[in-house]
Every structure is written in structure tokens, then in C-alpha cells.
């Protein structure tokens, strides 16, 4: 049965989702979702062990051999993403119960968990598949479930946010599909590895170049890379808190994973980094994105919206690492995906607790909460330190790796830029800290600490950011191996 893990990793949450609808009872659906997420994490951990010990694993769906059938290929890059997705879900679902009970109508609970599991299925599928069309199918599964989940937010503006994302997300997925269609037209195959070998002599053809452009722009819409980010701030602000937390920890990173996988595994590092002016484009876009998104975050009046803009800046930091264009930059970028998932997961969890106990997340409501909700506030501050990239935290390790990569290429301005923009991050974290600790509470402010079932996942995530800040050997090893794999050099 251990050989069946690549399929089960995706199939188990896929089947748990309809089972939630059949069960109809919110509590049972929640228990099933929690069990599923833990099983998924266990499978991801076993797969990681197998990949670290024995190299990449291939799996033929339905017994149809590649390149005709759909192949799942699991290597160091996949397992890193699988760990991020299933780990986030395994921490967020136990946390979800009180928040969902507060924000979602009771008759919708079972369907809400079903949507959550479908998002998870889609993301896991995107991370596991080795077939460019199957990737599109999973993008659609996760996206459609995401639109539905965002629309369940209790603010009516959640509906327009979901619709906005639906339109832009569909444009993104369609662009990706057009790109895949163009590649299929010249190669006649959809298997990633087969595509890579057939496309090599065709790289100068106009069809392939246009296909690459469509795929890049389509997936960058999903990544929400500036200036294709318009859907994200509203979607994160008005979605149910639990969904925001899960999306912020995983969704944009999995989209970026897909882009990197297609770009490097199909077109090849030489094409992407040398033939096309990718480095210049990515550095310019990411640099602008970091400055614009961080500055906008400083002026936000709502914690969730502030964190959403911060996510845009952090995703841009990951792209910046890719744009540096050497193995260390890429490894730093992949590592930053991991550390940012932990950090932003913890921050949005804290936001979800404030939404539950204070009835909203505007900074005005948060005033003085540092004394009334000490544990949640402290967790928020510690996770905020990791967001800035203070030493001893996970984000420090990943940002430092990116800085070193820039220095390795002799790009002092880029290294300096990363350090200076960390100060912008500090500015908006300080604004939150100021509201929590240095402002008086309103006279009638509610004053209850979060329930324990929400505090332990929150603190687990915070502990994770510090653990991986002190001992980052496993994610670092996976990221370095994955970067070497993508660049086509021996690890």
C-alpha cells in the first residue's frame, strides 16, 4: 500500500469532501476534516522520507503508462509543497471549529468543511501531478471551491470579492489552458517530462514562445504578483477567517510552485534564465511589488487587510529570490515559501481569534487587546517578528539566504533593497503592536482570551517559526535539492 501514497495523498481529501456533504452534520464533518488533514500530513511526511532516502517517485494513474496516461511524480520540490499544504491544513482545521461556528450559518457547516477539503484536494493535486493538463484540472478544483468558500463570508462584500476573484481567476486558468493548448499543438503530449524532451528543439518557434507567455501570465494572476493582484486584498479581507488563513498559508505559493515547475521542468533553466530576460523582468516587478504592497499595508485600518497586502509583498520577495537566478536564490525563494506559510498562517490565525472575540479586526477594535487577550496578542507579536525577518525566526533564514544569493552575484543594491524593505515590514507590524499594547481599551470592550482549542494551533505555528529559525536543516535540504533539480544541476 505504501506505493499507492502518491495517489492517496490527493484521493483521501477528495473523497472526504463529498462524505462531508453526505454526513450533513457540522460536527461530524469537522471531525472527518481534521482526521483527513492529519492523514494527509502523515502521508506527506512518509513521502518526504521516501524521497530523501530514495529519490523521485513516479506513479501511473489507472495503470496507464506515461506519456499516455496521467503520471504523478514526487520529488524534493513536490514534497516541500505537499508538506506546506497538509501541514497548514492539519493545524488550521482543529483551530477552525469556534471560528466557523461564529462566522458561518449552522446549516452550511458541513458544506463549508467540504469546500475546505476540496481546496486542499486541488492544491495537493497541483503539487503532486506530473501532467500539465491534470494541473489545470486541479487549479480549477481548488479555485472553484475557493470562490464558494470566500462567498460564505459574513460580510456582504464577500460576494463581490468572490465574484471579482472568480472573473480574474478564470481568466488566469484560461490563459494557462491556452498556453497548454499551444504547447500540445506543437508537441502532441501533456506529460511534463515528455513535453520537456519534445519541446527542446522547438524552443525558438513562435507558438512555444506565445504558449510560455500565456502560461506565465495566467499563473501569475493566481500568484497575485503585482500588478495582477487586484483580487487578493478583498478576497482575504472578507472571506471567512479560517479560509483566509488557509489561502494565505498555501494558495499563492502553490500557484507559484506550478509556474516554477512548468517554467523550469518543461522549458528548462537555460531558456527561462538565459534566452529570455526573465531576471530583469522579475526583479523589476518584484521590487515594485514589495515597495507598493508594503507601503499600502502601512496605511491599512484593518488587520486582515493589512496582512493581505503584506502577503503580496512577501510573495514578491519569493519571486525576487527566483529572479536572482542562481541556485541559492531559488533555494532561498523555496525556503521563504515554507517560512512564510508558517508565519502568515500564525498571523491570520491570530486575526481569526480577534475576529471571534472582538467581533471584527479593525485596528480600532484591537486597541488595548494586548492586556485583555495576552496570549493571542503575544503570538501575533512573535509571528510579526518572524514576518520582519528578525534573527532566530524562520523568515530570517530564508530572507538571509536570498540576500546571500544576491551578494554571490555581486548585486549589492538587491541585497540592500531586501534589508531596507524589511524596515517597511517593521513599520506595519509596529502599527499593529501599537494598537494592541499602547492604546487604551474602549470602556465597553469585550475581554476574553481565546478558547484553548484555538490557542494551541496558533502557538504551534508560532513555535514552528522559531523552531525552523533555529534548525532549518530539513526544509533547507529539500529547498536546496529542489533548486538544484529545477536548474538541472546535480544536487
Amino acid at each position: 500500500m505504501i506505493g499507492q501514497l502518491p495517489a492517496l495523498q490527493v484521493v483521501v481529501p477528495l473523497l472526504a469532501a463529498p462524505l462531508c456533504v453526505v454526513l450533513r452534520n457540522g460536527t461530524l464533518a469537522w471531525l472527518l476534516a481534521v482526521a483527513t488533514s492529519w492523514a494527509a500530513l502523515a502521508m506527506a511526511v512518509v513521502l518526504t522520507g521516501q524521497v530523501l532516502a530514495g529519490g523521485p517517485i513516479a506513479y501511473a494513474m489507472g495503470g496507464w503508462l506515461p506519456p499516455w496516461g496521467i503520471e504523478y511524480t514526487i520529488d524534493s520540490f513536490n514534497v516541500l509543497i505537499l508538506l506546506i499544504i497538509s501541514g497548514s491544513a492539519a493545524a488550521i482545521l482543529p483551530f477552525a471549529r469556534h471560528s466557523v461556528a461564529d462566522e458561518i450559518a449552522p446549516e452550511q457547516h458541513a458544506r463549508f468543511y467540504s469546500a475546505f477539503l476540496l481546496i486542499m484536494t486541488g492544491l495537493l493535486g497541483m503539487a503532486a501531478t506530473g501532467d500539465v493538463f491534470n494541473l489545470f484540472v486541479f487549479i480549477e478544483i481548488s479555485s472553484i471551491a475557493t470562490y464558494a468558500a470566500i462567498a460564505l463570508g459574513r460580510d456582504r462584500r464577500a460576494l463581490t470579492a468572490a465574484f471579482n476573484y472568480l472573473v480574474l481567476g478564470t481568466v488566469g486558468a484560461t490563459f494557462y489552458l491556452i498556453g497548454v493548448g499551444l504547447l500540445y499543438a506543437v508537441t502532441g503530449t501533456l506529460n511534463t517530462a515528455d513535453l520537456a524532451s519534445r519541446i527542446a528543439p522547438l524552443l525558438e518557434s513562435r507558438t512555444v514562445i506565445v504558449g510560455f507567455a500565456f502560461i506565465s501570465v495566467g499563473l501569475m494572476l493566481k500568484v497575485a504578483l503585482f500588478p495582477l493582484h487586484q483580487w487578493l486584498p478583498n478576497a482575504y479581507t472578507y472571506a471567512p477567517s479560517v479560509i483566509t488563513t488557509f489561502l494565505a498559508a498555501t494558495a499563492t505559493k502553490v500557484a507559484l510552485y506550478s509556474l516554477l515547475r512548468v517554467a523550469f521542468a518543461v522549458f528548462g533553466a537555460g531558456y527561462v534564465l538565459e534566452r529570455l530576460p526573465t531576471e530583469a523582468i522579475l526583479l523589476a516587478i518584484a521590487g515594485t511589488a514589495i515597495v507598493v504592497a508594503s507601503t499600502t499595508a502601512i496605511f491599512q485600518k484593518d488587520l486582515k487587510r493589512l496582512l493581505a497586502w503584506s502577503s503580496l509583498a512577501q510573495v514578491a520577495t519569493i519571486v525576487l529570490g527566483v529572479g536572482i537566478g542562481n541556485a541559492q536564490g531559488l533555494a532561498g525563494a523555496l525556503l521563504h515559501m515554507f517560512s512564510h506559510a508558517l508565519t502568515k498562517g500564525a498571523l491570520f490565525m491570530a486575526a481569526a481569534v480577534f475576529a471571534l472575540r472582538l467581533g471584527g479586526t479593525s485596528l480600532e477594535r484591537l486597541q488595548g487587546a494586548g492586556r485583555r487577550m495576552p496570549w493571542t496578542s503575544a503570538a501575533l507579536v512573535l509571528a510579526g517578528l518572524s514576518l520582519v525577518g528578525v534573527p532566530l525566526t524562520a523568515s530570517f533564514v530564508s530572507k538571509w539566504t536570498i540576500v546571500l544569493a544576491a551578494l554571490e552575484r555581486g548585486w549589492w543594491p538587491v541585497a540592500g533593497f531586501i534589508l531596507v524593505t524589511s524596515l517597511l515590514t517593521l513599520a506595519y507590524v509596529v502599527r499593529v503592536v501599537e494598537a494592541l499594547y499602547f492604546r487604551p481599551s474602549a470602556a465597553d470592550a469585550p475581554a476574553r482570551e481565546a478558547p484553548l482549542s484555538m490557542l494551541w494551533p496558533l502557538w504551534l505555528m508560532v513555535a514552528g517559526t522559531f523552531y525552523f529559525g533555529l534548525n532549518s536543516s530539513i526544509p533547507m535540504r529539500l529547498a536546496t535539492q529542489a533548486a538544484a533539480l529545477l536548474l538541472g544541476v546535480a544536487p
Partner: protein
Amino acid sequence: MNDQPIARILTKALVPLVLLFGLYVQVHGEASAGGGFQAGVILGAAVILYGLVFGLDAAKRAVPLGVLYPASGIGVLIYGGVGIASQMLGGDYLDYGVLAGDFVAGQKLGITLVEAGVGITVASVMIIVFLEFTGRRDPA
């Protein structure tokens, strides 16, 4: 539509035929043109036609939402269950060949079950979308 005898009588005559045609497309999917998706749409269309002519309440009596929601999930479970079953029997996920004694019989059994799952889910989701949208009242 009580004052529309032609529409009512035609619908009464058509609905059973459409349902029968839907079932025909369903069971022939594995050997000829057709299959679960098309059959599900046809079956769903029969109920939607019935609802358009005889009203929403009549349609909900014929196929209650309380049945449709679980059915939409059960269809997916049948599909995925076939995959799990083939894994249990030593094949890969959705490797139908191992489901029966010989390879061809297994393939036939597997694809028939999978198409049945697709048909159930597609038909029930079509009807759910119709019932939920037309059942909405403006809040104002």
C-alpha cells in the same frame, strides 16, 4: 401554468421519454457515444422541464433537496470508491483491469460504475442549481 393545457400535456408525455433516453445514454456510455455526464444532463433537464411547467413545489416533491444533496456527494464517492477498490485489489488508482476475473470484464465493470457515479452527481447538481436559484426570493 394551469391555464396552458398544451404545455402540460406535452410535458407529461415528454418527461418519461426524456428520462428513458437519459438512462439509455447512461448505460450505453461504455460502448458507444454518451456517458455519465451527458446522461446526467439529460436526466436533470427532464426534472427542470417538469419544474418549469408544473411549478417549483411539484419538482421539489418529486425530487426533494434532502435527497439531492447527499446524492451529489454519493456520485463522487462511487467514482472514487472504484479507484480505491482497484487499489485494494492490487492495481493502481482507477486501474479497472483488476476489478473482475479477466482484464476486459474488469475494464467494463469499472467504467460502468464510474459513469454511474458521474451521472448521479451531474444530474443532482443540475437540479440543485435550478431549484436553489429559482427558489430564491428577493430580500427587499
